[in-house]
């Protein structure tokens, strides 16, 4: 059965041009009433009156309307599908892997280029009535082209896609493709990736509807799989050390050179001999300068994306805090704590003396049992045992007793360098709740319930930490090592609020409002989230200047480009049906009709103008 339709429904808005023409004619007609010297003679004529508003279009109007109607009708691209006796129209969904491993070089070419060429060939095979959809899979799924019969558009969109420095997560894109396939019977799903089906993240049974094409086979890759910059708190950058993990993913031994530079100055070169699928760790000490750390593997392997890594070394400013407390013991404890840091400075005032100007010139504020009406204008603020009902750290009125540390977020920068927290029990702790802007870094438990002991996060562009432990009652002494380390780590983290942000490519990271995107880094959402799609050091425009983001791939799974997985073969699937409908596109005919009407209209207009 024949079926008519339109390929560009939004183009129907072009028919508004007809209304515009009508309005134009009415306006011109009103303006072109024939002026006569007097009407009193005409009013004596007993001729039938014409309704003034009645529109009596002439041939010129009808021709112009025909031109517009033909052009508008052509713009909506009407078509007629007629059965040809063959199979029904085909739909092709191409899922293209754009992760970092697709940048790997094969003897035939770069994996991504091979995959794209295959996709181009598949699209070229489609008939004019077939539809195609393009989905990319990197760290996230992205729809590059919704269902469209425009093959030229599909080819253009494919050309615009590039492989990114991000790990692979095929599952969301596969789920999207499968749901599209379920919604549109007969959809052929073509997956172009270097991953085996078993790493697709969906059930093998679902993959029966998928045509999985694995691109690439080489395992020739050595990559940097981890970089850790260890800087002692408040110490000179020269005291920093860098731990670099390098791994050979090939099944043959490799020799490589690791070259390091810091602050634009060459630092060190290390020759590394790596066994088959072996790894090595390199510790670099005493950097020659502070600033950008650049690590580079001098090796000719298939994947270059993981041959470089970046970091950042200081410089660190000595701790500079104002402590607002009534407790001389707490102030003294902080002074002792900072005394061990060269150049450290602690100023103490009582809460009654607090004014916003007091915090000016300091980088960190420690507020003991006190929350001022306005947030201190410092890089970071530590609220110690905040009072109940305050506006910053949600705190219940009833304090918890006998709270012991039961869990902590080992990945949080506050706890960096600590191999877990030694046992710690607090006689009394404020009943903190986790606010929307922060997360629980250290979690305690009492007999009644679990209580956050330390909450940290960023709000209003500043770092804020809330500590449940009343430090005035819990002396920061060496016999309370956990509390001591926690306080020190928190001060360091608070002071580091404007330092470079280290992220893994593809990982969404919350970021302060006011930070803009740059090439290779997207910033979107509310609250804003940053995603680095390219590894390297990015300088993002920010309200207060710039924000440095250090992005590294450092993903073993991505660097392992020659994955050997014992895959179970995919269930066989019937070949996709070929196109069954012959589509007649009326666009060209309509445009031709409009052209003919234009010529006739021009001729008529010329005759009238001549007359």
């Amino acid at each position, binding site marked *: 059965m024949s079926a008519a339709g339109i390929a560009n429904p939004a183009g129907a808005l072009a028919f508004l041009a007809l209304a515009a023409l009508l309005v134009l004619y009415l306006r011109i007609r009103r303006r072109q009433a*024939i002026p006569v010297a007097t009407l009193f003679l005409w*009013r004596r004529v007993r001729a*039938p009156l014409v309704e003034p508003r009645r529109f009596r279009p002439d041939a010129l109007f009808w021709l112009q309307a025909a031109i517009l109607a033909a052009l508008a009708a052509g713009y909506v691209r009407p078509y007629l599908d007629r059965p040809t006796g063959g199979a029904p129209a085909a739909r092709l969904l191409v899922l293209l892997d754009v992760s970092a491993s697709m940048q790997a070089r094969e003897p035939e070419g770069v994996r991504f280029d091979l995959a794209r060429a295959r996709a181009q060939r598949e699209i070229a095979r489609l008939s004019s009535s077939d539809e195609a959809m393009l989905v990319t899979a990197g760290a996230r799924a992205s729809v590059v082209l919704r269902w469209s019969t425009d093959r030229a558009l599909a080819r253009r969109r494919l050309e615009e896609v590039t492989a990114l420095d991000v790990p692979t997560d095929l599952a969301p894109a596969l789920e999207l493709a499968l749901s599209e396939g379920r919604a549109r019977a007969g959809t052929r799903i073509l997956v172009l990736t270097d991953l085996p089906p078993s790493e697709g993240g969906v059930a093998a049974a679902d993959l029966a509807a998928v045509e999985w094409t694995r691109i690439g086979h080489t395992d020739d890759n050595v990559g940097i799989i981890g970089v850790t910059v260890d800087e002692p708190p408040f110490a000179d950058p020269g005291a920093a050390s860098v731990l670099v993990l390098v791994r050979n993913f090939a099944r043959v031994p490799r020799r490589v050179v690791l070259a390091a530079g810091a602050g634009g100055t060459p630092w060190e070169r290390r020759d590394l001999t790596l066994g088959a699928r072996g790894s090595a760790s390199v510790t670099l000490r005493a950097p020659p300068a502070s600033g950008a750390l650049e690590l580079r593997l001098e090796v000719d392997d298939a994947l270059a994306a993981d041959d470089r890594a970046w970091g950042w070394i200081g410089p660190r400013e000595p701790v500079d805090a104002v402590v607002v407390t009534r407790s001389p013991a707490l102030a003294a404890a902080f002074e002792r704590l900072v005394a061990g840091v060269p150049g450290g400075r602690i100023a103490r005032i009582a809460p009654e003396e607090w004014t916003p100007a007091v915090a000016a010139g300091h980088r960190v504020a420690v507020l003991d049992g006190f929350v001022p009406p306005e947030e201190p204008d410092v890089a970071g603020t530590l609220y110690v045992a905040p009072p109940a009902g305050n506006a910053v750290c949600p705190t219940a009125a009833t304090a918890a007793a006998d709270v012991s540390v039961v869990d902590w977020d080992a990945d949080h920068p506050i706890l960096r360098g600590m191999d877990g927290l030694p046992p710690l029990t607090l006689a009394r702790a404020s009943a903190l709740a986790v606010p929307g802007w922060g997360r629980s870094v250290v979690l305690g438990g009492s007999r009644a319930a679990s209580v956050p002991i330390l909450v940290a996060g960023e709000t209003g562009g500043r770092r804020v930490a809330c500590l449940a432990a009343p430090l005035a009652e819990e002396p920061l002494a060496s016999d309370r090592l956990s509390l001591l380390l926690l306080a020190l780590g928190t001060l360091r983290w608070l002071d580091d609020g404007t330092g470079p942000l280290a992220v893994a490519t593809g990982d969404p990271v919350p970021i302060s409002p006011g930070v803009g995107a740059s090439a290779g880094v997207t910033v979107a959402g509310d609250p804003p989230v940053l995603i680095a799609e390219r590894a390297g050091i990015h300088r993002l425009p920010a309200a207060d200047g710039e924000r440095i983001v250090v992005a590294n791939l450092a993903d073993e799974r991505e660097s392992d480009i020659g994955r050997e997985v014992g895959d179970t073969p995919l269930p066989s699937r019937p070949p996709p049906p070929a196109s069954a409908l012959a589509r007649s596109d009326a666009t060209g005919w309509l445009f031709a009709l409009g052209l003919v009407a234009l010529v006739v209209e021009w001729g008529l207009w010329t005759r009238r103008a001549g007359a």
Partner: protein
Amino acid sequence: MSMRAAAAEPSLLDPARLARFHGLVLRVPGGAGEQGGQQRVPGRADAAGLEVEAYRSYTPGDDLRHLDWNALGRLDALLVRRFTAERRLTFHILLDASASMRVPAGADKLRAAQELAMALGFIALAANDGVRTAILLADGRTRVSRPHRHRQAAAAVAGELADATGGGALGLGAALAAHAAQHAGPGVAVVVSDLMSEVADLERGVRALRARRFAVILAQVVAPGELDPGRTLRHGVLRDAESDDVHAIRLTRAALAEYRTVVEEHLAALRALAARTGSVYGRLVAGTSVADFITGDLARLGLVRRR
């Protein structure tokens, strides 16, 4: 002369082009003036002059030089010769500069009216008569010039007439009446207009001029399309150029024929008005030769003569 030839003719607003009108004079029935001049005014015998017009009985104080001694010898009666008055006339050229004079667009009635007014004014100046221009503007305003008395003033008259650009609504009868109220006769009022207004309204103005001892010349300037609109009107939405009123009629052949009848009635009413008020009425079709109109139509009416 055909319209096309008339259109190609140089503008009569240029005084240098008016030399052909030398030797002509405007003879206006009833036209008179207070000052002596060269214009003979029959019916108003003077005690002195060149041409004997009448006699009357001698009364003490009459100039004995004008006593007709022959009559005394034959009739034994003392009769004194009376002479045809010779006066300087003042022509008030009232030019309609309303919006109606600019329609239909192709005819340019205003231009034809300006040229006609200029030609009449030049003839008057050449005969040592006075000329005063009065441009009848919209909303009852009138721009009246000072009197011009010599042929050299032709350029000034041309400038005053050329300044009339046309626009706005004009009640012609009221404008004529207002002019009569502000300027006493005797004189000659030359009304150059399309006269496309109610005859009753126009009559009020003409009678007001007559009451102030003006002889009146009604010089109508019409467009060909106003007499026969069949060639210019394609559809029937008509707009009054002065009031902006709209009148939409179906222009059938019957309607056009009826319009022509209505126009003929209007022209006949104008002629009747002229007869009633002792005025002179002439009609110039815009696009035809103004010179031919003066030396042809107006000469036949006795308005223009050789000196």
